[in-house]
């Protein structure tokens, strides 16, 4: 191999955070999940967190594979149960930064109940949801996020169910940080991830990502690059927009931005407060008392 410039060969910045022996990964050409992993690695760099205390939890699915590729303590859990698993880990060891990295089907269909209750209790979890509008790994079935009219293997005449508006769902359940970006907005995704890692409380980031093999192909929308161009052309940045009005329609405009950024006492703070009030001196405090105050 020729080296034409006398410069120290620096490694790809993402490689410090990726298990390179497992590359090439399983994601299809044109899939945006790898792009979000790039953003995640840059965000970890910028947030300057102690990587010994960062944990990634994934469920099942294409995005669930992230746990297998990041060079951190990572857990690939059962379908839909990434949030319960992360909840247990956070409560036992509150000083960890627990990141749930999973797909739309895993988080909001199979794990939908866990998602809304973790948001309601304001558990200190950072939830990154890569939304490709379809069940990718199982063969392109309709997901709760599939837009009306989109064709999937289980909806050959077009989906007719109203999809979830994920930022609205997260906000109404009580999340303290809600944002939506696409795989095209790499700098903004990185910035949002950095903000989430520094924030306390239930944080939710939705990243729209192309699924060239199933969603794009079945709907005759071209390849991954076409999807990225669609995100570029049709995205409208509206920070602080009313989440009720930002539902996604089939190939329609996409409202992106940071919608919610509020403060609310987290689960452990509320528990400590309540138990101290009722039990007073008898209350021994939770594990990692210094952290949960």
């Amino acid at each position, binding site marked *: 191999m020729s080296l034409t410039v006398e410069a120290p060969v620096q490694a790809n910045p*993402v490689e410090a955070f990726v298990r390179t022996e497992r590359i*090439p990964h399983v994601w299809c050409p044109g899939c945006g999940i790898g*792009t979000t992993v790039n953003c995640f690695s840059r965000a970890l760099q910028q947030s300057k967190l102690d990587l010994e205390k960062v944990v990634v939890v994934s469920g099942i699915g294409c995005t669930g594979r992230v746990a297998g590729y990041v060079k951190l303590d990572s857990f690939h859990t059962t379908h839909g149960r990434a949030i319960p698993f992360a909840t247990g880990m956070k409560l036992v060891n509150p000083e960890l930064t627990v990141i749930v990295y999973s797909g739309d089907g895993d988080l909001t269909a199979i794990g939908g109940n866990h998602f809304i209750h973790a948001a309601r209790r304001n558990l200190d979890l950072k939830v990154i949801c890569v939304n490709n509008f379809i069940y990718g790994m199982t063969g392109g079935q309709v997901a709760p996020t599939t837009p009306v009219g989109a064709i999937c293997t289980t909806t050959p005449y077009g989906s007719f169910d109203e999809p979830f508006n994920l930022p609205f769902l997260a906000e109404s359940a009580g999340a303290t940080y809600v944002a939506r970006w696409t795989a095209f907005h790499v700098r903004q995704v990185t910035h949002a991830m950095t903000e989430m890692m520094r924030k306390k409380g239930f944080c939710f980031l939705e990243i729209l990502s192309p699924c060239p093999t199933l969603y794009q192909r079945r709907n005759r929308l071209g390849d991954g690059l076409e999807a990225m161009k669609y995100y570029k052309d049709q995205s409208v940045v509206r920070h602080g927009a009313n989440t009720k009005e930002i539902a996604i329609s089939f190939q329609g405009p996409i409202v992106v931005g940071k919608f919610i950024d509020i403060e609310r006492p987290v689960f452990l703070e509320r528990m400590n407060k309540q138990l101290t009030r009722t039990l007073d001196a008898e209350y021994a405090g939770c594990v990692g008392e210094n952290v949960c105050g």
Partner: protein
Amino acid sequence: MTKLTGTAEKAKKVRGIVHINKNRCKGCGFCIEFCPPSVLEFSDEFNAQGYHPPRLADGDGCTGCDLCGMYCPDFAIYAVMIKNRQQGSAAHHDAV
């Protein structure tokens, strides 16, 4: 005579190096499409997986912004900035 300013002088300098790991590439074209100075293009050769990896079309144009590295879903390309470096030969390095 007025002194040449900014852009004319800067344009002569190589500002970034692109590192391409050809065998990791799956040919999605994100780096080529979204490169701000448009210095990348598909090469004619195939890699081990049968895709056409990108190559540097304009050696002096790379600014080292690393947007290709941010977009690449296969961790196959990245760019680094060179500071205070005069023009050299084509700023292109094939990572193994």
